């Protein structure tokens, strides 16, 4: 079942030949206008999640039932939700779960998949077998179903628990990508040279293998962050994610689904979540293009 790695391998090319140093990479990225715009957008969302008060002075839990599902009026640009709370404030406050998922599940997934992939690729035999078999088991169960089953058995679901469970079930794909690139790197001359002068394995992994094998996984992670944000929304919509009174775009979709006559309830969170995922996607695309030496020629 190593076919997945081929699929991603075809999109994220193995780095042969010249690679960029970190400053060169950053400079190449900052020269692209679309990258800069998306970076600014993403940072805005991060700020929104960290300090929502900067964007709205209205309390999202302050509601007037008389204004239930009213459309916009001065001072309330997005109108009101079903309870008559200001919808703009609610959409702003809803950024936090999505941003947390994107950051923590994205970085955490990179770390978990990276470490397991390094170990599996560099130590064939027992370690590789153990990690790969566990991955087979996790892979064999449709991802969403596993998540629903696990999340349903957790009574108090916070965003951290959701992220943790996404991490536990989601690492096999990234692990396989990392494992296959480590396979192609582990017998290169510089690794053999390091091994021959007696460098301890952990140091070889950290200093020589990881920097040269991480690019495909990095590209896959940044491209996948958009999917993670959507996944959190889906889980919350299905009722196995965040629970009220937590505010999130996913739960706003859930409410909007039963009140079709007021489309503004759906429109705004949809616009915000799509902007955020598209930004992450374009950033991921730019990083992959910048890392791909074929395009540098």
């Amino acid at each position, binding site marked *: 079942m190593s076919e997945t790695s081929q*699929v991603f391998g075809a999109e994220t090319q193995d780095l042969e030949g010249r690679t960029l140093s970190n400053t060169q990479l950053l400079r190449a990225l900052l020269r692209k206008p679309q990258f800069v715009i998306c970076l600014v957008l993403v940072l805005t969302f991060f700020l929104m999640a960290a300090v929502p008060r900067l964007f709205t002075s209205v309390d999202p839990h302050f509601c007037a039932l008389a204004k239930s599902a009213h459309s916009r009026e001065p001072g309330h640009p997005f109108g009101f939700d079903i309870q008559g709370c200001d919808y703009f404030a609610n959409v702003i406050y809803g950024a936090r779960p999505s941003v947390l998922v994107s950051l923590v599940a994205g970085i955490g997934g990179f770390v978990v998949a990276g470490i397991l992939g390094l170990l599996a690729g560099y130590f064939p035999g027992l370690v590789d077998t153990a990690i790969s078999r566990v991955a087979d088991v996790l892979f064999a169960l449709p*991802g*969403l179903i596993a998540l629903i089953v696990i999340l349903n058995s957790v009574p108090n679901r916070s965003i951290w628990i959701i992220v943790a469970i996404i991490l536990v079930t989601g690492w096999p794909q990234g692990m396989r990508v990392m494992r296959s690139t480590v396979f192609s790197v582990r017998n290169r001359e510089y690794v053999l040279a390091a091994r021959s002068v007696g460098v301890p394995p952990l140091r070889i992994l950290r200093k020589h293998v990881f920097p040269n094998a991480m690019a495909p996984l990095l590209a896959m992670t940044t491209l996948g962050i958009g999917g993670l944000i959507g996944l959190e929304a889906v889980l919350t919509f299905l009722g196995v994610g965040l629970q009220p009174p937590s505010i999130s775009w996913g739960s706003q979709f859930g409410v909007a689904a039963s009140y079709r006559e007021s489309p503004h309830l759906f429109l705004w969170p949809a616009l915000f979540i799509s902007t955020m995922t598209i930004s992450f996607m374009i950033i991921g695309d730019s990083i992959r293009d910048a890392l791909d030496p074929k395009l540098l020629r």
Partner: protein
Amino acid sequence: MIRFILRRILAAIPIGLIVTLGVFALVFAMPGDPLRELAGDKPIPAAVLAAKRAQYHLDDPFIVQYLLSMKDMFTGHFGTTFAGADIADQLRLRIPVTLKLATLGLVFQWIAGLLFGLYAGFKRNGVMDRLLLLATLVVLAVPGLVLYFTGQYLFGVELKWLPVSGTRDGWPMSYLLPAICIGITGFAGLARLTRTSIVDTANSDFVKTARAKGLGEQRILWRHVLPNALLPVVTLMGIDFAGIFAGAVLAESIFNLPGLGQFMFQAIKLKEGGVVVLLSTLAFLMFILINLAVDVIYGAIDPRVRNV
């Protein structure tokens, strides 16, 4: 070939055991008593409760419950759900719904993905190619949930071209909208992969050799580029196929289609371990069979992997 298939099936058995055991353990670990929750606020006589508990083996230890439900599954006695519906009847009603939805969705997805991917791959850097890259970026980036709702609102509620939800209008009208949504969410990845794969193959050394030998462009395309470029595409199509049942959970709950995904979701909510394990096993069997089929097709198009 037969040995290869047998070996794959043998290797799948322990994975299947662990998967079903794990799923059953998770359902077992869910908080709350399923029968009491089903009864709601009404008091149940202790004798009825005890009889029900005995019927569903709820008082047995975990491993006995698991073995009993596995035995039921393999002997074909699926029994009834906690609410009293016959599970075999439910399957008979629901499998066609999911199957229709999944096939129609996959047909849309594969046709759109392959067509656009092939076209963009051959005419790369043309106008269509750029448009396609932009379109796939948007489709990949917009969360499925948003896309489903937008489709439902636009074509169902506003324009009234297609039914909003349910299966009242029968095949194919009721399935068109959800299937198109599944197709749109899935086609982008396929189109991109097809394009990249074709571009990569067209630049490879053996194609240059073929051209240097003086072969015609048509022959190069059909005999050298396509068979090699389609290898990763076949894999992705297999993965999509295996994953479509998980995707069906979302589509069925948004469009209110009474299929397997919805059944699974209800069973998880009601803590019906037996049903959840049964459906997980079905999903797992599909996964194994599709992977097997992909490997067999692989052997047919790529002689290099034939003798693994």
